[in-house]
């Protein structure tokens, strides 16, 4: 991968060009284009089934695409270029690209048989080859950052949903990602627990992390997002500065959606 490009500021963090994604004959992403600058926070909103989660999962190659291309910091994830075509890359290539993309899931997906500390040190030790003491030190610091410093010996099942999601964010951060993907991070939470997770995400955004967030939290989007993307039926309907899209949408479809979720 071109490591030089990772550090240069003029290369977009994410560049999505003409992406199509189909399940059988079902067209879930249709000619999607999106460019995300380093440090930008993008919120993807839209009705369920609009393809926003699928788009997010395509970025770190949890889903394959059928046409188009996706660059993350100038490199391909899960594909390599051969002439004009993309060819699926080897597992090793895909893993290396993925390490730098943190992912947070709706259902947290913490490893249930491991303590919080073990959840956080597993990948840094076994994927990045970090020495154990260093991994533990980093994990404890990150648990502290999400407000769970005293819980490192607990198992995920002993925590509330909000706490689990904060740990999941910390686990992704342990790999020192340059990009964070959030797939409806608060949708599985009790309403009173949503705030604590959004606080952690707000803190991350404040530290110049590039973030793509699929969310139904319009308030959060208005407050934290630089850009809001509205999707419907596999297409990007509207794309612009958060205040503009949320407060004076240009498209009728966007307006109708926002009226209903408000």
């Amino acid at each position, binding site marked *: 991968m071109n490591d030089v490009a990772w550090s240069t500021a003029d290369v977009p963090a994410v560049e999505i060009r003409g992406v199509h994604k189909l399940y059988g004959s079902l067209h879930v992403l249709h000619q999607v284009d999106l460019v995300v600058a380093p440090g930008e926070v993008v919120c993807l909103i839209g009705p369920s089934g609009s393809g926003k989660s699928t788009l997010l999962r395509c970025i770190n190659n949890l889903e394959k695409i059928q046409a188009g291309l996706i660059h993350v910091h100038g490199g391909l994830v899960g594909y390599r270029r051969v002439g004009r075509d993309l060819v699926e890359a080897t597992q*090793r290539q895909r893993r290396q690209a*993925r390490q730098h*993309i943190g992912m947070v899931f709706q259902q947290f997906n913490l490893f249930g048989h*491991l303590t919080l500390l073990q959840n956080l040190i597993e990948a840094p030790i076994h*994927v990045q080859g970090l020495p154990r003491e260093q991994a533990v030190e980093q994990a404890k610091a990150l648990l502290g950052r999400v407000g769970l410093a005293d819980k490192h010996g607990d198992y995920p099942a002993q925590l509330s949903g909000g706490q689990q999601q904060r740990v999941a964010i910390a686990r992704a951060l342990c790999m020192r990602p340059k990009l964070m993907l959030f797939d409806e991070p608060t949708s599985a939470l009790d309403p009173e627990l949503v705030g604590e997770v959004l606080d952690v995400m707000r803190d991350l955004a404040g530290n110049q992390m590039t973030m793509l967030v699929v969310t139904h939290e319009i308030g959060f989007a208005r407050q934290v997002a630089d850009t809001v993307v509205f999707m419907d039926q596999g297409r990007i309907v509207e794309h612009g500065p958060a205040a503009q899209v949320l407060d004076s949408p240009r498209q009728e479809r966007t307006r109708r959606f926002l009226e209903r979720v408000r």
Partner: protein
Amino acid sequence: MTDATAVKMGADLPVRIRARKRYGNWVAGAMVVLVVVLVFRSALTNENFSWPAFGRYVFSSTILLGLARTVELAVIAMALSIIAGIVLAVLRQSSNGVLNAVSGAYIWVFRATPLLVLLLLLYNVAALYPTVSLGIPFGPDLFSVATNSVVTVAGAAIIGLTLHEAAYCAEIFRAGLVSVEHGQREAAEALGMPSGLILRRIVLPQAMRAIVPPLTNQFVNVVKTTSIVSVISMSELLHSAQIIYARTYETIPLLLVATFWYLVLTALLTVAQHYVEQYFNRGRAGISAAASRKLSRLALEAGR
């Protein structure tokens, strides 16, 4: 609502909330005790059981040697089947169509072949292939030995049991792997973990919860299935008992001796299962109902 009624109700508040008396348990218990006493009495007073003979043989060296052979056979066959079973289960889920089909075919063939038939075939394999050779395919042999020196009685027993049990273990492991939520694998993939590592450190440890009970079942089965191996004259527990009663005609006591040891082995496995399950339940284990009741009582008392 006046203060007076509130006070009055306060006075009537129950001090303790007690569990219902379960008389059914006592009745059932008494009946079971009665039946057990009757069975034991009849067995002990019936001279045809010849308990002195049972006592004479239960720790005899022939029986204990047979027991050791049975344990050895079961442990080796089970260990090999577990390894083969994991490999087959992983292949069965592989995206590589060829490997997938190979695993499926293996499971089909060896679940379909009765163990007895398989053992007899292996025992007589020398009739099919008198020598075993190592060589270049379609080329010269580098090395060649008589089949009977490789596939001994013990060899045939272990190979037969392993081939047979591996097919069942494969399905047990596959069921376990499937039972782990897909999100666990996805989260590990998103962290850049390679698939071998995901299997070993994330999926398999969590699959074990679903795997241990049927696998113990399988192990118990193998312990008893070793008795089938007596048909190819392997001197395991049952065969040792048969050798003695062929000589002394004390058939019943010796069959009881064999049964006794199978019971003991199964009891040991059941105890082991308990601890293995506890280990793989970590992270989800609640506490027992009784312990929970006690903790609640203590907490309430401390709060008063």
